[in-house]
């Protein structure tokens, strides 16, 4: 090979709506398959002729045995992916990046904090912890969304109640909303955390992660047990295009999941 290898062809096995602007797509290989993904790792998904975007796997094994990605239609490529239907083809490469450190979480209570579509890269974490309850302590899932209609994986979130403590909050409630209102950090007030034995995994808008991680540390979590998943522009996913820099980090290579301690100061620098 004398140039960058192309992605592998994958077929859309199923798609379904999550919210008005967000769909999940399940992808199965038409030939050679990619190596298995770990929770928090991402794929570059190529929409024919339009382009390629990095998207974390939202489930490692869907109903058809394929990889599931959840896409919000915000730009040209993500809109093209949003419009995919069963039988359509995409190009897929990966797995890329450093995922959630679940080994570090073993034996600990696991606190998952998600803002908006940030729940997508965390969903494989919830699946893993629910599948292997003996390996972890208590599981708590906190979900924040703009409005009740923007909550992704709604039905599934409800199914986690019982084995997990689940709390959901929205910024703007609609009629009939009985649950919490406010930013996701307000949910921390009503939690009976065991901070000394808790690992927190956080994904959402950067400002949400900054506040959440800081609040968690204030509440006694060991900073080294807080992980965040960061986002930057990415074109190559292999550390070669330079777009995804956050100070010393190349987030495609050194992230997207990074220890909070590693980025706490970087997140305070405007426009870094």
């Amino acid at each position, binding site marked *: *090979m*004398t*140039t*960058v*290898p*192309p*992605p*592998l*062809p994958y077929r859309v096995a199923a798609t379904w709506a999550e919210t008005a602007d967000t769909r999940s797509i399940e992808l199965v290989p*038409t030939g050679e398959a990619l190596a298995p993904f770990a929770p928090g790792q991402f794929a570059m998904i*190529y929409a*024919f*002729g*339009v*382009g*390629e975007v990095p998207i974390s796997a939202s489930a490692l094994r869907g109903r058809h045995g394929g990889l599931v990605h959840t896409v919000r239609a*915000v*730009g040209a490529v993500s809109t093209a992916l949003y419009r995919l239907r069963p*039988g359509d*083809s*995409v*190009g897929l490469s990966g797995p890329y990046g450093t995922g959630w450190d679940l080994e570090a979480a073993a034996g600990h209570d696991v606190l998952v904090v998600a803002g908006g579509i940030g729940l997508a890269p965390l969903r494989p974490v919830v699946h893993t912890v629910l599948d292997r309850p003996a390996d972890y302590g208590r599981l708590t899932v906190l979900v924040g969304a703009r409005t009740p209609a923007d909550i992704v994986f709604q039905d599934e979130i409800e199914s986690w109640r019982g084995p997990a403590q689940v709390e959901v909050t929205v910024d703007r409630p609609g009629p009939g909303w009985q649950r919490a209102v406010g930013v996701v950090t307000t949910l921390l007030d009503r939690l009976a955390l065991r901070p000394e034995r808790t690992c927190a995994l956080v994904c959402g808008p950067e400002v949400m992660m900054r506040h959440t991680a800081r609040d968690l540390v204030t509440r006694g979590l060991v900073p080294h047990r807080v992980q965040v998943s960061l*986002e*930057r*522009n990415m*074109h*190559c996913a*292999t*550390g*070669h*295009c*330079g*777009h995804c*820099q956050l*100070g*010393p*980090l*190349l987030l495609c*290579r050194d992230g997207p999941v990074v220890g909070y301690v590693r980025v706490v100061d970087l997140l305070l*620098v*405007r*426009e*870094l």
Partner: protein
Amino acid sequence: MSADAEVNTPRPPASDELVMGKDGMGALVDVLVRRGFTVVGPTVRDGAIVLAELLSADELPYGWGVELEAGRYRLRERSDGAAFANAAGPQSWKSFLHPARIREWSADRVEGELVLTADQAPPPRYAFLGVRPCDLRAIAIQDQVLTGGAYRDATYQGRRSGALLIVVECTEPGATCFCVSMGTGPAAGPGYDLVMTEVVDEDGHRFWIRSGSPEGAEILAELPARPADPETRETARAAVTAAADRMGRTMPEADLRELMAGTLDAPRWDDVAGRCLTCGNCTMVCPTCFCTTTEDVTDLTGDHAERWRLWDSCFDLDFSQLHGGPVRASSRSRYRQWMTHKLGTWYDQFGSSGCVGCGRCIVWCPVGIDITEEAAALHEWTAAEPRGG
């Protein structure tokens, strides 16, 4: 810097050191062409010394020097007829190893199936004639960036692995050069196939030439040359040593990585942002800047698409674009990104500085922003501010 500097003191002569005249340079190009190389070297074109394919050594810029200053580049005729007595031109070897625009792969829709095809064109086999020590280091830095990690850039690797590097040590630094500060010259570091030092004096126009690889030694054996005489060797060494004392610029005596990390909120960034046009010239001429973007295109049938890779610049507003807008919207943050990456975070990412002191960014900045001057200003700020540094 000190560790880097060790490799750039004049190296002990190899056993096969020779001296050749101008005819030897002609023979060298002929040998390279005969061996199937595309020979690329400096030549005069459009009022500048540019890098282009050479069919004969006559195309080298014999008798041309350059005058360099911040925001200024001028050719100057030399009376001595030297070919390599000129500092860096606008281009660097990355134009050939890491092209500004290249097709990576194609996608076709065939009976509903997506068929993805790698571009299989064999890479050109280059011989680079006249690589400066600073640019030799720049190539080593790009090697590390593009092939030193978990993923290898196959395009770069294909071009790089076949490339022959013929270095010419620097005896005529420009007013914007600071390779001594960066530990990258004016003597050649490791990694060359052949290295030569040009000497023009009353004893004639000649080149002290040594090999650094088996292939270099083979080529050297084919050249019309004589064993190196001590006078030529000493004159050549003295010229390189003297060049080290004639650098036009210098970086402040500071740990530049620490300086960059400790000055992210320095007011100097506002000052330079007031001058920077965010044109990205500095990134285009920089021999180590490697950033790229991708462009996906389709033909009129809609069934054939191609992935192209293009140079990109961290000065472009789109560079840090996310769904909510660019992360680095201000010119202050974009200049800061470039300079702190080059001199600071490059160490974290790739284990070395990203700057080789070639001075191109100073010369080709339309408003004459000088990276050494900016570093000095930041250094002064940390000295004045107890909280900095």
